[in-house]
């Protein structure tokens, strides 16, 4: 009786090991199952999800105009102090002063890509871009100015 159990044990063990080897053997003989993506080589064909949060950008239209009113909602919403808005007062043609942004400072090195600033923006002036290759040699380069030089607020955005 003991011998029968002993042999049964050995055979069962051998069977379980062979089924395991069958699985790895299958993958060894089926190279099409390989799922590796060769990243720097496939840059041209790389498809990123459109909602992927890579960095905050401020889209400008062809007239170099953006939609940022300088309301600082994003600055308040940001949990890390990533955004700093410096405002100035434009003198309108009719002599009135109007608040506008001077510099939209964005600290990429502090950003955690949570997307709360984009959610908070009332005029959809900023959005999350797909870029993700942010490495630079100098940390200063990570502090960015999002509004382009000479840009103005788009007409009709309040």
């Amino acid at each position, binding site marked *: 009786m003991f011998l029968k159990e002993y042999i049964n044990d050995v055979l069962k063990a051998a069977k379980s*090991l062979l089924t395991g080897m*069958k*699985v790895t053997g299958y993958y060894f003989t089926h190279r099409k199952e390989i*799922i590796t993506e060769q990243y720097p080589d496939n840059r041209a064909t790389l498809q990123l999800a459109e*909602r*992927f949060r890579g960095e905050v950008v401020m889209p400008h239209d062809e007239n170099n105009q953006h939609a940022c009113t300088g309301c600082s909602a994003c600055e308040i919403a940001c949990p890390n102090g990533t955004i700093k808005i410096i405002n100035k007062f434009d003198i309108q043609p009719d002599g009135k002063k109007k608040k506008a942004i001077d510099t939209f400072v964005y600290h990429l090195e502090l950003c955690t*890509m949570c997307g*709360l600033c984009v959610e908070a923006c009332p005029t959809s002036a900023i959005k*999350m871009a797909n870029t993700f290759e942010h490495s630079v040699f100098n940390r200063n380069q990570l502090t960015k100015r999002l509004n382009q030089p000479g840009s103005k607020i788009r007409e009709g955005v309040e």
Partner: protein
Amino acid sequence: MIEEVGTTTEGDLVINVGPQHPATHGVLHLVITLNGETIKKVEPHLGYIHRSIEKMCESLTYRQFIYVTSRMDYLSAHINNHACALCVEKGLQVEVPQRAQYIRVIMDELTRIASHELWWGAMAMDLGAFTPFFHAFRERETINTIMEETCGARLTMNYMVPGGVMFDLHPDFQKKVKAFIQQYTSKINEYDELVTGNIIFQNRMKGIGYVTKEDAISYGCTGPVARGSGVASDIRKIAPYDVYDKVEFDEVLETGGDSFARYLVRVKEMQQSIRIIEQLIDNIPEGDFQAKTKAVLKLPKGEFYQRVETARGELGVYIISEGGTTPYRIKFRSPGFSNLSILDHMVRGHKIGDLVAAMGTLDLVIPDIDR
């Protein structure tokens, strides 16, 4: 032999396992006392990745603090966010739209599968088999891609906001989730053939790291660790939140109490998660994905507590509000911390190899323990 266990005498070997060690999956530091190969005592030392998340949350508003909690148990980021969002909603008394509730539950279950997949691979790697890790990552990667498409990130999603979810679902979401379910069910056999049925694996797991039902309760174990010992502790059943009371699923209970029972609980839980997703994915109601909330959230003065079932066990969020825009105090009851406390108890008298295996079945995420 028994009386020797647990005492340090001269001639014992004291080894520091960690904070940099391949088996601790992070910066856990275990001081183990050995008698030859036999473990006499295990003493976990914590704090290597303590980032004072609870203190940080006190200076963040109710919208902001949710994103920090993704960094606690980073493998179930959605579920952490979900717990915080639910707790804030409790304070605000906001009714979350049906659509958002459905989306949240589907996301939670996808996260649970992804987390268990990673655990499954890492578990096998702890035991010395490297191949399952990569096979598990194939399925996990599919989930990550689905997450990326809808939430915009792969690991720390920050998708749940007070009152609902941040965006609506991606148009391809349902199609992709169904494709994933198909992919998963076609590979599930392979998992069993490669790992579960393997004789070496079974011998390493069975009868090791035994936790009785009483011990599991008295040490405060939750999640798969408690369910492996037969303690019904699934918050989704005990105190259903969102639409968990509308779906049909079984709470996986194993009575073995050993490493293998905990392993089986997690593997079967993945299938239950698939079952939940299958029930919900075709029935997501139309409507808003976010309730209307004020721009600045203020919780009324009081104390709020919400618990959810993460992939590791019960996560509790406890907010004390003084009526301001930021919480006065936040406390997280993390599952990993309580589950780790039983490690010493369950590996005494076993071999070093068993320590690694038993620790693998606890499914520890160190940032979740230290916070």
